[in-house]
Every structure is written in structure tokens, then in C-alpha cells.
């Protein structure tokens, strides 16, 4: 099922012509409108007119989350604010989020990408799609929503949470497809099982799941519990949101990246050197259809490889393998990006707390849990529990505010969090994901 057959099955030569033209346009736009990137290009001695072929992409400097943070909130926008019609945001590496701005064209381009993803899942205008991703600053909810409307299907914007009501609507409205995080899909499946609901009352046949890493084991479990086909969708706020790449029903091996809008490169995370197709490395994405906030050679820190072989579905856009982990310490917890450094910035400056912390991530009943351990300073140990509890509440609130995520805070005795010789380990991830 194609949403846009001509573009999805375009021959590589024509696709690359489009890519080059759009890449040149994007580089011009960045050079003209984004001061920090222009300076970086000048420092590297490269001008927009040096980009003559697609291979010249590697002449361009990388971008990273840090650049977006340093230019917070809108210093990397390449369109005037009057052209920006929407803002989304995701966690940055410290207290400030990463803000993304979209022009009207960006919203339309993104909806086009999501529409193709829905096609990959066999969803058509005759279907009803429940969007159980969170709506708001998070890109999941609205991203999927616009795609579903674009193909003319019926969207049920339930957002996340209130599982029983979700399932009631899913059953009563006869939803054919659902989009949410894989862990939430599992939770819905388990609720159906535990409530002894009859699967034959559901019309659901397919799910688009993303925004957090998941395994083939989880896929099997979701498919069994919900009686559907579960497919992986990929995206990140910095390159629009979900819909950058998508598995197809036919192949179910690797995710097609919409290469007329995004150019993937796999690089060696240590040296930055591009790696040949098939080799595992860090994915960088160059957006070539965006105006509001294009990113050039954006380092995703996601580990994957490119599958150059054609897919049996007939799409010519190359696939990336399902994600294999990350090159940095970012955690994805209940779909929320979490950096240990965010916790550090939250607790710094609270009197009585040592600058030591440990994040313990686990998955209990298929729901991610985050325990944060912080250390008390010896002088704060008091004979009065009340004072320590007040401090505990304060720390918990500070951390939750920065992360946008509920945490289980554990105050630890002084000097109890392990000191390591080399690089301090700030996280223990007990989830068996990869």
C-alpha cells in the first residue's frame, strides 16, 4: 500500500537529483539565515557553492543537540518568526529543552512523511486510527494526527493515559490502527488480557510504535496480546518528529527513510568519518525539505546501519536497521528523553545535597521506572526526619520539573554512591532491550 507511489518508488537517479537540489537550497538557507552555522562553515572553509554533488555533503560541519541548546530557544531557526506556525520541544541535555519551529510547509512535509508511514502499515482513508501518543510539546501526538488527517482516515486523538477508556473507544469505534509508544501498546495489551476483554470485539490490525527502543521480543508480545502487526516508526524532534523512517508490512526488516526529505549518513562516532553502507555506526540526518529549523548532518547518537538492498515492497528509499543503542548516555524513559546531566543541573545548588547521583532505570510490568539516588551531605543528617523529608521533597520536585517525568527519589547516606576510578557511571539500565 503506497500513499505516494511515484515518490516512494522513484528511481535512484531521479531521487538523487532531487536530493542534490534540495540539499543546495537547504545549505543556502542555513548559510544566509543561521549565524552560528554560517560561522561554522566559514571556519571549515566551505561555502554553499562548494556543494556540487551529494558526495560534497561530507564537506559540511556536523550539528549536535548541543548546538541547539547553545542557541536556545530559536537561534537555529532559518525562517523568520512570522513564518513559524508551530513549536514543539523535547528534552535537552540540561535544564533547557530543545525547541523546534515549523513553517506551514514543514507541517505539510511532515504530514506527507507520516502519510507514507501509514501507507507502509497498510492504513487507508477507510480506516480509523487511534493516536495514543501524548499530545502537546511532544511531537508524537500531533505528528501522527496530521498524517492521519492527510490520508483522509479518521483520527481518534485519545492522547496517552486512561487505558480503560482508550480500550473502550478502540473497541466501540472499531479502530483499525493505533499509534503510541511500544511500552504503552504492551500495557494496553495486558489490560485487555487482565480485564478478560474479548479480542474478537476489536477490529485493530496494525500498530505504529516508536519514540523509544524496543526489541523483537516486545514486538512478539504486543502482536500476541493485541492480535495485530506491530511496526517500528522512527523520528526525532530535531528532524521533525516521528515519520522520518518506517518499517513496511511487506518487508518488516529495516525502516525506509524518506530520502527526498532526509539524507542519512552513517559515521564512525569517534572520528566522524562516513562509513560504507551496511556498517554499524552513528546515524546523522540532513533535513532537505525543512525551512523552520533545518539540521545539517545532525548527530542523532543513534546506532544503526544502512541496508542498501532493495526492499520487497518496491520502495526505493533505503532502509536503516532497527536501532541498536546510543553513542551517548541519553535514556529514553516512557518516551521521554532523559540525560543524566539534567539531573545534575537540577540538584546543583540545593543545599545539603552532594553533587553525586545515580539513575536506575527498570521496567516493571512493562512500564519504565526511574529511581534517582542522590547523596546527603553529612552535616544535613539530622535527628529530625521531618527536615530530611522536606529536603527529599524539594529534590524530587526539582528533578521532576527538569525531566518532565515522575521519579522515585531515594536519599542516600553520605558517601554511599559508588565512586569510580575513571568515567563516572551515572546510570544503571536494568531494562533488557537490546
Amino acid at each position, binding site marked *: 500500500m503506497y500513499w505516494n507511489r511515484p515518490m516512494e518508488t522513484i528511481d535512484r537517479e531521479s531521487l538523487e537529483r532531487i536530493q542534490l537540489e534540495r540539499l543546495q537550497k537547504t545549505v543556502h538557507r542555513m548559510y544566509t539565515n543561521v549565524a552560528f552555522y554560517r560561522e561554522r562553515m566559514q571556519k571549515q572553509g566551505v561555502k554553499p557553492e562548494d556543494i556540487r554533488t551529494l558526495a560534497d555533503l561530507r564537506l559540511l560541519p556536523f550539528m549536535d543537540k548541543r548546538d541547539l541548546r547553545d542557541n536556545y530557544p530559536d537561534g537555529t531557526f532559518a525562517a523568520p518568526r512570522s513564518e513559524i506556525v508551530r513549536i514543539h520541544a523535547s528534552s535537552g541535555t540540561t535544564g533547557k529543552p530543545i525547541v523546534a519551529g515549523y513553517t506551514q510547509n514543514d507541517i505539510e512535509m511532515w504530514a506527507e512523511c507520516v502519510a507514507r508511514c501509514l501507507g507502509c502499515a497498510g492504513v487507508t482513508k477507510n480506516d480509523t486510527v487511534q493516536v495514543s501518543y501524548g499530545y502537546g510539546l511532544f511531537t508524537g501526538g500531533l505528528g501522527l494526527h496530521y498524517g492521519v488527517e492527510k490520508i483522509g482516515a479518521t483520527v481518534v486523538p485519545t492522547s496517552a493515559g486512561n487505558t480503560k477508556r482508550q480500550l473502550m473507544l478502540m473497541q466501540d469505534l472499531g479502530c483499525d490502527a493505533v499509534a503510541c509508544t511500544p511500552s504503552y501498546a504492551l500495557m494496553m495489551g495486558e489490560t485487555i488480557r487482565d480485564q478478560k476483554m474479548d479480542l474478537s470485539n476489536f477490529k485493530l490490525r496494525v500498530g505504529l510504535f516508536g519514540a523509544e527502543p524496543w526489541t523483537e521480543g516486545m514486538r512478539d508480545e504486543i502482536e500476541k496480546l493485541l492480535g495485530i502487526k506491530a511496526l517500528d516508526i522512527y523520528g526525532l524532534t530535531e528532524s521533525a518528529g516521528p515519520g522520518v523512517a518506517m518499517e513496511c508490512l511487506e518487508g518488516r526488516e529495516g525502516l525506509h527513510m524518506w530520502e527526498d526529505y532526509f539524507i542519512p549518513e552513517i559515521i564512525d562516532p569517534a572520528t566522524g568519518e562516513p562509513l560504507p553502507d551496511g556498517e554499524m555506526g552513528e546515524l546523522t540526518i540532513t533535513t532537505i525539505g525543512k525551512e523552520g529549523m533545518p539540521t545539517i548532518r545532525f548527530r542523532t547518537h543513534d546506532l544503526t546501519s544502512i541496508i542498501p538492498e532493495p526492499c520487497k515492497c518496491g520502495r526505493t528509499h533505503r532502509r536503516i536497521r532497527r536501532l541498536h543503542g546510543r553513542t551517548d548516555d541519553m535514556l529514553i524513559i516512557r518516551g521521554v528523553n532523559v540525560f543524566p546531566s539534567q539531573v545534575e543541573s537540577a540538584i546543583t545548588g540545593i543545599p545539603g545535597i552532594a553533587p553525586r547521583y545515580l539513575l536506575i532505570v527498570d521496567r516493571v510490568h512493562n512500564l519504565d521506572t526511574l529511581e534517582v539516588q542522590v547523596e*546527603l551531605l553529612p552535616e544535613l543528617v*539530622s*535527628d*529530625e526526619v521531618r527536615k530530611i523529608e522536606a529536603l527529599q521533597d524539594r529534590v524530587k520536585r526539582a528533578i521532576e520539573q527538569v525531566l518532565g517525568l515522575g521519579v522515585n527519589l531515594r536519599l542516600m547516606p553520605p558517601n554511599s554512591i559508588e565512586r569510580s576510578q575513571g568515567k563516572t557511571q551515572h546510570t544503571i539500565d536494568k531494562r533488557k532491550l537490546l
Partner: protein
Amino acid sequence: MFIQQISVFIENRHGSLTDFTQLLGENGVDLIALSIADTTNFGILRAIVSDNEKTLKVVRDKGYTANLTEVLAVAVPDVPGGLAGVLQLLRDNDISVEYLYSFVRRVGNDAIIIFRVDQPERAGNLLRDKGVRLLEQDEIA
């Protein structure tokens, strides 16, 4: 007028109290009175022990965080209403009790109750003036 209480921060996990009391036992420290205030994550153990200096050294060497607090050891008549009488005195004088707990042993006909109050000096003088007996450090070990 005051006696010293030792407070120790103890992680709320299985076996932590056993570890701690064993440490005291191995070092010949006698626990005279004990109370624990606990939350889900941690507990504050408060104790009156036979030898404060030694206890502090032993527990700190083991990595525990401990400190000393001055508390009142009040001799309360071991009869119904005995404690109420002392509390009444404090209330009438606007002194708040932060916490209290009792000694394991009796001294004469009195039960010994450990008081931590918000105005220790005033409370100590008041109780003494009213004829309530307060134990000194050397009376308890």
C-alpha cells in the same frame, strides 16, 4: 541537665538494622534506649549508648553518618498519668516536643523518657524548677 543522643542515618533496606546493631555489639557498646523514625527510603536511628565517643568512632569508621544531639532524660513517675503531667507542664509553657521515646529500664520507681523539644534550655530549667528529675549523662551508662 542534658544527655547526649547519637543519631545515625540508616538506609531502609533489608538487613541494615542487623548490620548496625551487630557493629555495636562487636564493639561492646550497650544500647540503653533506642528509637527509629523511618520513611520508605531511610530511617534515623536515635540511641542512648554507654560510650558516645567510642560509638561515634566505631560507626563513622564503618562509613555511617552520625552526630550527637542534646536531649532531656526525664524521670517520670511510673504511674498512669505520669507522662501526661510532664507534657502538660511543657504545653503550658509553649514548648513543643519534637519527639520522645522511652528507656528500656526503670530507675527506681520512675520510667525514663527521652525528650527532644524545640527549646531545650527553657524546658530543662522549667522541669527542674517544677521538681521533675532529669538524669545526667553519668547516671545512665
